[in-house]
């Protein structure tokens, strides 16, 4: 029988390295992918993942099972770390959190113009979708990543992002409308091949 998160957490606090390892392997992928989709940079995703599990190691007393699952608690920490990274790198990525709800930052800001693989990258739909997600304002991006990419329920996403379910719903609708418009403008149809991996650190 697979031990629950809370059981592993109890063992981890008692000093069992295996329990910490099990928790890490259970959650690191999702945390990493969340950070990667939010930042567009695998090195940053690595750093965020490390910070999240260091927080689990050092501040797990702040986790209250009555308030949500361990997974949502970890996402909450990951989100703070990612937002810190995005604030630090505002000169590289237009976040548009304040004013540009109407239109996400152009994809061209996110793809190096001197990259000879640009055309190939743009032809790959998965890459186009990810770039379009990256171009969303952060508050819409995080909802799309959690609800659509990570398939979280609205309630779980609301816990992770510390807001109401209604806010999640309205932000997701808005985010998806923006994404659809972005992809239409770029001229990509999401039905195309999407198996590319256009990771490129813009930080």
């Amino acid at each position, binding site marked *: 029988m697979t031990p629950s998160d809370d059981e592993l957490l109890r063992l981890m606090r008692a000093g069992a390295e295996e329990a*910490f390892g099990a928790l890490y392997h259970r959650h690191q992928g999702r945390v990493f992918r969340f950070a990667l989709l939010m930042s567009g940079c695998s090195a940053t*995703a690595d750093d965020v993942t490390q910070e999240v599990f260091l927080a689990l190691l050092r501040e797990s007393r702040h986790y209250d099972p009555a308030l949500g699952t361990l997974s949502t608690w970890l996402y909450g920490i990951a989100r703070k770390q990612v937002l810190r990274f995005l604030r630090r790198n505002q000169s590289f990525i237009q976040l548009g959190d304040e004013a540009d709800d109407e239109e996400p930052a152009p994809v061209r800001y996110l793809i190096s113009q001197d990259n000879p693989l640009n055309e190939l990258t743009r032809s790959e*739909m998965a890459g186009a979708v990810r770039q379009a997600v990256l171009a969303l304002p952060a508050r819409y991006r995080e909802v799309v990543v959690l609800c*659509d990419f990570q398939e979280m329920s609205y309630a779980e996403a609301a816990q992770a992002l510390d807001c109401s379910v209604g806010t999640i719903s309205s932000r997701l609708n808005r985010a998806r409308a923006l994404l659809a418009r972005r992809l239409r403008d770029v001229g990509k149809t999401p039905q195309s091949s999407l198996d590319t991996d256009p990771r490129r650190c813009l930080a």
Partner: protein
Amino acid sequence: MKCQEFEPIIINLARGQLVEAASRETALNHLDRCARCASAFDEQRALTAGIRVAAESLANQGASARVEEALLQAFREQAMQFTAPEVRLRWRRWTFGLAAAAILLLALLAGMDWLKSPPANQKRETVNLPATPSGEGPGQKQNSQAQIEGRRDQKQKMGRKSAGSRRLSERRGVRQSVESANEIATRFYPLVEEGEMSPLESGMIVRVEAPASALITLGLPITAENINRPVQADLLLGQDGLARAIRFVP
């Protein structure tokens, strides 16, 4: 209903989420009649498919091995930090215990030393004598032969005791001290009466620890809280190994 009101329902349908049956029926009927909403619905379905494929392309992505190594190292360091204080506390308890035992042993030895020294009434009698306990006093010649004979046995007994005491002190590591010019000490209090022993020709000072109550025996002041504390004292031993005088080092 206006098109705008259908938007959330359409998005939920496109995402494959469960929608209330009545709302679903109304929305599907609206899509049949409204080309704009039908187009938006198709777009949203395509977007859902695109997101799904993009998510699948990332499914095997995870943090690099260095992250796990760093975290396991941090875990071990933290575990060490938690256990180290316990070990330190255990060692501290042992240290305190050993120190207390050593002090108790020294006090016991000093007490035994003190008990083996000449009787207290003799000390009381000589407490106000001059600091030089040796040499022939002017009244010595006036002592009768009977007195000398009478005390000879006592003297021999005391001699044996004092010699034994000295050997005991030396055997148990009582430190012999050389009188330091900087050390503050009381004057020497004689432990024997004048003329009771042979003149002091040479001597040796031996540092011992004695219970503070020994000060009372010599009529020296002592506070109640210090009565159980050991005090350091120097014993003046004559050439015959007998204790002649004592002084205290505060």
